[in-house]
C-alpha cells in the first residue's frame, strides 16, 4: 500500500466527516472526566483543516500534512490541539521530500509521531490518553511487513477497549482519578476515528 497526495487528502477528509458526525458524542465523553469541549474543539479544528486543504494545490504528501498540522495547531486549542498538531508535524518532517509514501516510510513517520506526542504530553502508554491509540497503531506498522485495513481497525478498536479500564493520570481527566475508570477517553476516541478513516483509505488503496 502506498499513500499519495490525493489519498492523504481523502484520509483527512474522511476523518473530518467522522469527527463532525460524532461531535456531540465526543463532547459527551469529555463531560464526566473533562471539561466537555473536546468535540467542539475537534470539529472546529478539522473543519478548518478541510477548508484549508480545498484552497491549496499540493505536490507532496508532507505539504498536505504540514497544513493539517498548522491548521490544527491554530484552531483546536486546549490540550488536544498541540498534541494532534505535534503528531502531524512529526509525520510531515519524517515524510518530507517523498511524493509517494510506502508502508515502511509511513511506519517510521508514525513512530516519530508517537515519540513526539509522548514527549509533548509528557505521557506514556497506560495513562488513558490518545497515546494509547496512537502507540499500538505505530507498533502495528513497525512490526508487520504488510498491514491491511482490517488489522488497522482491529488494533484501534482493541486499543479503545483497553483505554476504558485505565485510570487517567494525565490531562484534565487526571483530576478525577479513580472516577475516570470505566469511561472512554475522548482524545482516544477521536484518534480512533482518524485510524478508522485511514483504514478505509488503505482498503481503497490496496485494491
Amino acid at each position, binding site marked *: 500500500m502506498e499513500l499519495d497526495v490525493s489519498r492523504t487528502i481523502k484520509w483527512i477528509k474522511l476523518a473530518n466527516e467522522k469527527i463532525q458526525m460524532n461531535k456531540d458524542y465526543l463532547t459527551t465523553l469529555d463531560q464526566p472526566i473533562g471539561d466537555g469541549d473536546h468535540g467542539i474543539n475537534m470539529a472546529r479544528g478539522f473543519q478548518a483543516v478541510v477548508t484549508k486543504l480545498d484552497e491549496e494545490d499540493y505536490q507532496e504528501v508532507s505539504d498536505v500534512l504540514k497544513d493539517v498540522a*498548522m491548521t490544527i495547531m491554530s484552531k483546536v*486549542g486546549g490540550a488536544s*490541539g*498541540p498534541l494532534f498538531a505535534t503528531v502531524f508535524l512529526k509525520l510531515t518532517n519524517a515524510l518530507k521530500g517523498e511524493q509517494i509514501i510506502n508502508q515502511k516510510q509511513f511506519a517510521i513517520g508514525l513512530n516519530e509521531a508517537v515519540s513526539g506526542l509522548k514527549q*509533548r504530553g509528557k505521557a506514556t502508554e497506560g495513562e488513558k490518553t490518545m497515546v494509547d491509540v496512537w502507540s499500538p497503531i505505530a507498533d502495528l506498522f513497525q512490526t508487520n511487513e504488510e498491514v491491511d485495513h482490517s488489522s488497522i481497525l482491529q488494533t484501534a478498536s482493541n486499543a479503545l477497549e483497553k483505554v476504558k479500564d485505565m485510570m487517567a*493520570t494525565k490531562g484534565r481527566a487526571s*483530576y478525577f482519578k479513580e472516577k475516570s475508570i470505566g469511561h472512554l477517553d475522548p482524545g482516544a476516541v477521536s484518534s480512533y476515528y482518524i485510524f478508522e478513516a485511514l483504514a478505509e483509505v488503505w482498503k481503497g488503496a490496496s485494491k
Partner: protein
Amino acid sequence: MKKIINDPDQVVQDMVNGYIAAYPEKVRLIPNTLVLARKEAPIKGKVGLVSGGGSGHEPAHAGYVGKGMLDAAVAGEVFTSPTPDQVLEAIKAVDGGEGVFLIIKNYTGDVLNFEMAAEMAEAEGIQVEKVIVNDDVAVEDSSFTTGRRGIAGTVLVHKIAGAKAESGGSLKEIKQVADKVVANVRSMGMALTSCTVPAAGKPSFTLKEDEMEIGIGIHGEPGIERKPITSADEIATELTNRILEDIEISKGNNIAVMINGLGATPEMELYIVNEKVQGILHDNGIHVYRTFVGEYMTSLEMAGISITLLKLDDELKTLLDAGSEAPAFRS
C-alpha cells in the same frame, strides 16, 4: 443564563475590543489576534513578559499588562487555552532583543500550547524561558497527577517577575526570581456557587443551597470536599491551615497575603475573611508584609474565594513593592 453579552461566541473578541477602548494609551491589540500588548512594546533592552490562558478569569491576564508587569497577555476562548500561533504572536510582539519570559498556569492545555509557541519562537531566533505556576495546594502533587493547578498566586509571579524585568533583569535572572516565587507561593480556594460558560449556557456544576465546595479549581474542577457552608472564620481557618501544612512558614517570616474573590463575592466578605486570616498568621508569629484584597483571578460569576500566601525575602519584598501601572494592579 443571565449575562450582559451580545453573542456567546463573540464574548472574548468583544471583551478585548472593550479593553482596548478603555485604555487606548496603554495597550494595543496585535492585529488578527486576541493578544493585548503594552503600547510601547517591544522595549529595546528589556526582556518581554508574556502570560495568558483561557478567558473568564478577568482581570487576569490583560489587566496585568502594563509598565512593571506583563508586556502582553494572550486571551483564549472562555476557559480554553489559547493556541500556539497566538502565543507566538505575543512573543514576537514583545521581544526587544533580550528574549521573552512566559508565565504559564499549570494546566495541560496551557503548558502544551505555550511550550509549542516557545519552540516556534526559538526556531525564529527568539530566546524564550518560562515558569509554570502551580500554587493550588488542593490537588496534591504526585506522580499520579499532572501536578498542582495554577491559580491566584500567578498574579504575584506576574508582579515580581515584571518588576525584575522592568529593572533590567536578564532572562536568566527573571527565571530565577520567578522560580523563587513559585517555590514560595501557595493558594487554596472554595466556592459557594458555580459559574456559567457563555457558550455552554448552563452552570458548569451545581451546589445545594446550603453547600460549599472546598479546594475547587478556577474552571470549576472538582475540589476535595463538598459540605454544608460554615462560617467565614471556619472557612478562613481551613484554607489557611491547609496552606500552612503544605509550606513551612516559620515564626518571624515575612509574607504577602492575597484574599481573592472569584467573581460574585461581595468585597465585604473578602475583608471578613481577611480579618480571620490575619489573626491566624499573627497567632503563628508570622509577619504580614503586604495584603491584597480584591478580584485578581476570577471564575466568571462564581461566588467564592481563594487565599494565597507568599513567603518573602528581601529581594521579593523589593520587587513586590516596585511600581506597576497595569490597570488591575497599581502600586
